[in-house]
């Protein structure tokens, strides 16, 4: 209703531009320290689930909450699905993100359940430019040699988010792109059937 008021429109446009600048500036400003502190939080929550007395089913639900909160799920799901994402309707895209998030939480949650009794500490971080910041953690599990879990973090969506998990060098993004492609193909390239299938997996 103020659309004819040039001053107000100018202020609004200016404000939006300022906001965008701040966002863009923020995206470049994510430091290795901030990314490490962020991952420390993720690690603390993950390990408290791992070492709690929760049943497997309870733990997997809790892992999914952590993933939904800290992970950039729409971006990860989109990158993993690849080409079929572009042809999908927005409701299919949403359903896929949800199904993939649940699948990922179950699959990697089960892996993390194996770390019961372990401690996980942040051991370093490096700036990888456009690929975000790689935060290194070391898992100390009694009776096993310490091993590396690395976390790729970025704030290119506007907030600091987890975008990949690398266990002993093996990338979740790489692995799951291959898996989702195979599941999609075994469902005769039908996305709805793929989503149904993912809900049962992991």
């Amino acid at each position, binding site marked *: 209703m103020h659309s004819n008021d040039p001053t107000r429109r100018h202020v609004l446009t200016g404000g939006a531009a300022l906001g965008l600048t701040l966002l863009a500036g923020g995206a470049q400003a994510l430091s290795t320290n901030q990314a490490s502190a962020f991952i420390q939080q993720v690690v603390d929550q993950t390990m408290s689930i791992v070492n709690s007395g929760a049943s497997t089913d309870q733990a997997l639900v809790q892992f999914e909450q952590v993933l939904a909160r800290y992970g950039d799920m729409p971006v990860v799901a*989109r990158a993993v699905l690849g080409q079929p*994402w572009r042809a999908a309707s927005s409701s299919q895209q949403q359903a896929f993100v949800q199904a993939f998030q649940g699948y990922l939480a179950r699959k990697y949650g089960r892996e993390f359940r194996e770390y019961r009794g372990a401690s996980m500490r942040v051991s370093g971080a490096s700036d990888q430019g456009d690929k975000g910041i790689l935060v290194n953690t070391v898992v100390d599990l009694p009776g096993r040699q310490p091993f590396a879990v690395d976390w790729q973090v970025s704030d290119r969506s506007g907030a600091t988010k987890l975008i990949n998990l690398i266990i002993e060098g093996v*990338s979740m993004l790489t*692995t799951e792109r*291959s898996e989702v492609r195979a599941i999609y193909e075994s469902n005769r390239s039908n996305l709805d059937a793929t989503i149904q299938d993912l809900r049962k997996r992991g």
Partner: protein
Amino acid sequence: MFDSQNSAGQGAVVLLALVLGACTQQPGDTANAPDPFEKTNRAVHAFNKAADRNVLKPTSEAYVQVVPQPVRDGVSNAANNLQQPLNFVNHVLQGDVEDAASSAFRFGMNTFFGVGGLADPADDAGLYDRPTDFGETLAVWGIDSGPYIELPIFGPSTVRDGVGLVVGFVADPIGWTELRDYSGYYIALETANVLQQRSDYARLIESLLYESADSYNAARIAYLQNRAASLNEGAPATDDLEDPYAFE
């Protein structure tokens, strides 16, 4: 197998140079790395999976159930101890003095104070195993991995690591000593150790082989990326990192 190891070893190295000269591979982007032997590899993978399901897995489960843990620990320690001379050689060839010394001390300590390698006092002293192999030595020498291959029984490998495996058998210092007369026991020990490892990594193997939609590719990616990281002192190869924001 241990006879005339010198000429066999030289032959293998020449063969290796020929094979690797023919196939070089760009670093990075593991998932999309060319897989020229995919058809054969998939056939071998199907064979390996059947061998695991029908032989290795049930035998491993029986071994872990029947043989008491202290005995199994002794077997694993002894098998590990007998790998140390070859580890030493490879660390030396890689110019890694610290790890070479560690392997040598570990072997000495566990052989003399660990009941011939059945116990592992070196581990308690903080002298951890520094596993390596001839494939790693070749990598340190700047030789490319070559294409991915899945070997029967031995599983995921590359041309370079496969050649390294063969050279490792031939060049093993254990085979140069009087111990070669006991190679039957050695093979039995290694076999028992494999059964133990199938059990130690049961969760990972189940997930890769039996819960993956494409177990061949899952195993290929896991091997290539894990191998790249272990050749890089545990850190993932950063030129292999992905940018998920690039896809819109």
